[in-house]
């Protein structure tokens, strides 16, 4: 069992901003990671994920605000061997064998593991004798991972760790990662694969245009986005229905109604409370035909949240669902 030990902070961003020229890579980030959490950092390309991780690891200095790891400067935590990291931009040493590189990583870690153990943990025992410069992309990723877990770290930071891995390797990778988390380590990973965040993380952070726009369990994020979709048809023979009624359903986030020449209307509702909506439909005396209620994936939830955020900052105060409705009806 993973436990949360009181108010210890593994990592803390306080009012952190960083820009490159005119681009705000990270703006006003406030965030605390606690021991034992497995945290997914989600965001589209350019959302500031890699920049945030660079700041966290002390590879870059924030323009404003402060970043702490284990209550001190990032560099001190890294030198104490408390952090293992695998970055997209992290390269490997050429002209050496995998076993030599892993042995090196173990040797320089203040609390290094045995190289054989690390090779086994990362699932690369069979690559030990290979030259680093002759590996495939997925194999390279696993060597990078081995470097990140070469010692007894308290925090493991991974930036899109499964890029280039095929499905079976990816599953094995996450099994290893879960074992690390179960051993009490805090794991922070950035990913494009929403199902990874959904199935592995117990906390999901959504980063968009340098801002943290959602922070919660994946269930909470989905709920926030209006996480279920209700679809049905209304036939004219069942009596007239006003759209106003549909819009007033309790959990509705977005509404889309399309009509056919024969008068049949298809209704699609995105709802935070599908149960209440369906109950209300029947209470209002409607006869929804072909009723379907489906769960939204985290992916759609994510698109909804980032879309809402975009709408909000471009000054359209309509909910994203509304503007999407308008767009869809116009087609």
């Amino acid at each position: 069992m993973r436990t949360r030990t009181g108010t210890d902070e593994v990592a803390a961003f306080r009012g952190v901003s960083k820009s490159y020229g005119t681009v705000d890579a990270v703006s006003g980030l406030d965030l605390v990671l606690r021991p034992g959490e497995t945290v997914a950092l989600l965001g589209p390309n350019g959302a500031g994920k890699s920049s945030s991780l660079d700041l966290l690891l002390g590879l870059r200095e924030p323009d404003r605000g402060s970043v702490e790891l284990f209550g001190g400067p990032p560099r001190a935590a890294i030198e104490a061997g408390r952090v293992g990291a695998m970055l997209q931009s992290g390269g490997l040493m050429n002209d050496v064998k995998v076993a030599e590189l892993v042995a090196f990583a173990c040797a320089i870690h203040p609390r290094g593991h045995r190289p054989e153990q690390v090779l086994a943990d990362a699932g690369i025992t069979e690559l030990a004798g290979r030259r680093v410069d002759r590996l495939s992309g997925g194999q390279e990723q696993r060597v990078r991972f081995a470097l990140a877990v070469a010692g007894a770290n308290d925090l493991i930071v991974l930036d899109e760790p499964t890029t280039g891995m095929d499905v079976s390797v990816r599953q094995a990778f996450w099994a290893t990662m879960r074992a690390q988390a179960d051993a009490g380590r805090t794991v922070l990973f950035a990913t494009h694969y929403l199902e990874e965040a959904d199935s592995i993380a117990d906390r999901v952070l959504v980063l968009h245009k340098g801002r943290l726009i959602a922070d919660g369990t994946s269930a909470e994020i989905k709920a926030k986005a209006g996480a279920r979709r209700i679809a049905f048809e209304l036939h004219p023979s069942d009596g007239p229905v006003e759209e106003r009624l549909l819009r007033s359903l309790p959990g509705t986030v977005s509404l889309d109604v399309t009509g056919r020449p024969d008068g049949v209307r298809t209704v699609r509702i995105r709802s935070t409370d599908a149960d209440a909506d369906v109950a209300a439909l029947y209470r209002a005396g409607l006869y929804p035909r072909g009723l379907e209620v489906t769960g939204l994936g985290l992916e759609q939830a994510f698109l909804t949240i980032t879309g809402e955020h975009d709408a909000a900052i471009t000054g359209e105060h309509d909910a994203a669902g509304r503007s999407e409705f308008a767009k869809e009806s116009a087609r």
Partner: protein
Amino acid sequence: MTTLIRLEILRTLRNKRYLMFTLLYPALLYVFFISAYSGGTVAGGVPAKSYFMVSMATFGAVGAVLTGSAQRISLERKSGWVRQLRLTALPGRAYTLGKIASCAVTTLPAIAVVFAIGAVEGVRLPAAQWLGLALALWLGSFVFAALGVALGYAAEPDAVQPAVMIVYMLMALFGGTWFPVSDSLKAFARFNPVYLYNQLAGFTRPGQSLDTGAVAGLAGFLVVFVAAAAVLYRRDSKAA
């Protein structure tokens, strides 16, 4: 840190390009020069086999050091290995020190190979002078290691590789590597570290002692290159 240095040395010795360009190439050129001059002397009356033994040893040493530091550092900055190392407990300077240390070790074979050919071809020196010459050339190579580190942090590999080749070839051309520097050009050659480096061998000629002017000049270049390397390194670690 010793682990890093050991690994750096191992991988350099394993690199085929290193073997080609810093061991084989100067050795072959040396053999070629000996046969081209067929036992004669170069301008100034120095036997060709002695003259080119020194100039090819320095040519190999400078090549070993510049490719070992400048090109590798720029390539590894680009590949992200430098970043990866910053995420380890190693102090930031360990990487640069490791590069310089491995350069220092890898210049020795470059010098030794050419010296061995020289000995076989009949260059005769007292044992103390063999050792003294090897030591002088070895220590002199540190100047170029510092230059290599500075170049490695100065730019991207695409720019660094041609820059290294041009700097290296020009310094060699006007530094007495291919032919003795003519008297009219000696005034300029004092500002060429390769020329000063070649001058270190002067003490092995009869009646001459160590060229202290060359030593002072090289020391000056060392200070300048180390300072440049330090500035460029700091700039790089801020923008990692």
